[in-house]
C-alpha cells in the first residue's frame, strides 16, 4: 500500500489526538483580561486620539479644497502654506506625554510608550496620507500635471514633522505645546516668504522640489528614528 504524506498526517493526528481538557475554560478565565490582539490594540489606541485632531485635519482638508478651486501658478503656495497645519495635530499627539510630564511613567507600562506612539501616530499618519493624496487629487482638475507636483504638499508636511521631532526630543513640559504650535506656523511662514523671494512654483524649479523632497524625506526618517529611540525605556530603569 502506498502511503501519501496527507494520509500519514491524518493518521498521525488521529494517533496523537488528545481528549478534550475539562479544566481549560475555567483556567483560562484568569487570563481573560490579558489578551489583546493587534487589531484590538490599534482600535483602542485610535479611540485615544482626541476628536479635535480628526476634526482639525478634516477642516484643513476642506479649507484646502475650497482654496484650491481658484488656484493658479501664482497662488498655489497657499496650499503649501496650509499643509504644515495638518502636521500640527501629528506633532501635538507626538508630544502629548511630554506636555503632561508622563513619559517616564509610560516607559514602564505594559504597553510601552513606544508601542503606543507607533500605533497612534501610524493611524494618524495614515489618515494624513489619505488627506494629502485627496488634496493633491482635488486641487483644480489638471492643475498639477504630474506626481512631481506632489512635492508641493509633501515637502511642507514632512519638513514640519522633521523639525518638530528634532525639537520635541530636546524639550518637555509646556514648551512641547509651544513647539507643536510654533513649528507649523514657522514652516507656513517660511513657504510664504520664500515664495515672495523666489519663483518656487515655476517650471524651472522642478529640480529644487525634487532635491528638497529627497532631503526632507531623509531628514524625517533620521529624526523619526531618533525620536522613537528616545521613547524606549531607559537601560537603568
Amino acid at each position, binding site marked *: *500500500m*502506498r*502511503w501519501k*504524506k496527507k494520509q*500519514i*498526517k491524518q*493518521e*498521525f*493526528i*488521529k*494517533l*496523537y*489526538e*488528545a*481528549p478534550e*481538557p*475539562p*479544566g*481549560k475554560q475555567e*483556567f*483560562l478565565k484568569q*487570563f481573560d483580561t*490579558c*489578551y489583546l*490582539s493587534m487589531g484590538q490594540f490599534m482600535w483602542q489606541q485610535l479611540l485615544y486620539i482626541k476628536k479635535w485632531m480628526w476634526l482639525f485635519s478634516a477642516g484643513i482638508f476642506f479649507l484646502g479644497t475650497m482654496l484650491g478651486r481658484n488656484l493658479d501658478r501664482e497662488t498655489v503656495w497657499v496650499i503649501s502654506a496650509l499643509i504644515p497645519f495638518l502636521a500640527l495635530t501629528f506633532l501635538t499627539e507626538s508630544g502629548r506625554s511630554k506636555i503632561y510630564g508622563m513619559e517616564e511613567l509610560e516607559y514602564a507600562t505594559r504597553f510601552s510608550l513606544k508601542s503606543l506612539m507607533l500605533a497612534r501616530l501610524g493611524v494618524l499618519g495614515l489618515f494624513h496620507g489619505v488627506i494629502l493624496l485627496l488634496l493633491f487629487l482635488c486641487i483644480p482638475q489638471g492643475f498639477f500635471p504630474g506626481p512631481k507636483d506632489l512635492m508641493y504638499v509633501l515637502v511642507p508636511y514632512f519638513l514640519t514633522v522633521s523639525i518638530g521631532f528634532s525639537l520635541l526630543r530636546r524639550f518637555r513640559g509646556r514648551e512641547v505645546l509651544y513647539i507643536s504650535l510654533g513649528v507649523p506656523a514657522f514652516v507656513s511662514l517660511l513657504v510664504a516668504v520664500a515664495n515672495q523671494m523666489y519663483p518656487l512654483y515655476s517650471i524651472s524649479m522642478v529640480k529644487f522640489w525634487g532635491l528638497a523632497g529627497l532631503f526632507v524625506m531623509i531628514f524625517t526618517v533620521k529624526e523619526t528614528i531618533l525620536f522613537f529611540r528616545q521613547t524606549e525605556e531607559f537601560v537603568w530603569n
Partner: protein
Amino acid sequence: MDYEEQYDRIYRYCYYKLKQREMAEDITQETFLRFFGKKEYQEGEHPMKVMYTIAKNLCTDEFRKKKYMFLEDVKGEEVLQNKGPEDDIVNAGALRLAMEKLDDVSREVLFFRFVNQESFAVIGEMYHLSRYAVYRKYQKALKILRRELEK
C-alpha cells in the same frame, strides 16, 4: 495566537509525552503559570518555544517522579484510543510500529509539524537547529516512516 490555541497546543504536547489526561492538563496549567510569572519569558521572539521548553521539563520531572504509574496508564489510554473502525486500528498500529524506527527528536519534529502545526523556525529554536536542518530532519523522518509503513 490566542491563549486558547496556546493552551491546546501545550496540552496536546503534554498528552503526547505523558499519555495521561489529568497529568497533561496539570502540567499545561503549570506551564502557563510559570510562563506568565516571568516577564522575560513573554518578551522573547518565540513565546511558544519557551512554553514548550517549560512543558517538556515539567514532563521530564513527572516521568522521573512517577515512572511506574505512567507505564500502566499508557496501556489504559491506548486501549481507550483504539476504538473505531478496524482499518483505523490497523493503521494506528502500523504507524505506531513505524514510529519506533525514528529517534526521539524526529518523532517530536513530526508531532510538532503534523499535530501542532508549528513552523520550522519554532521547532528549530527548541532543538537549537536551523530551519533547514529541521526541514531535512522532517523530510528524512517522513521518508523512513513511509518506507516502514509500506513494508
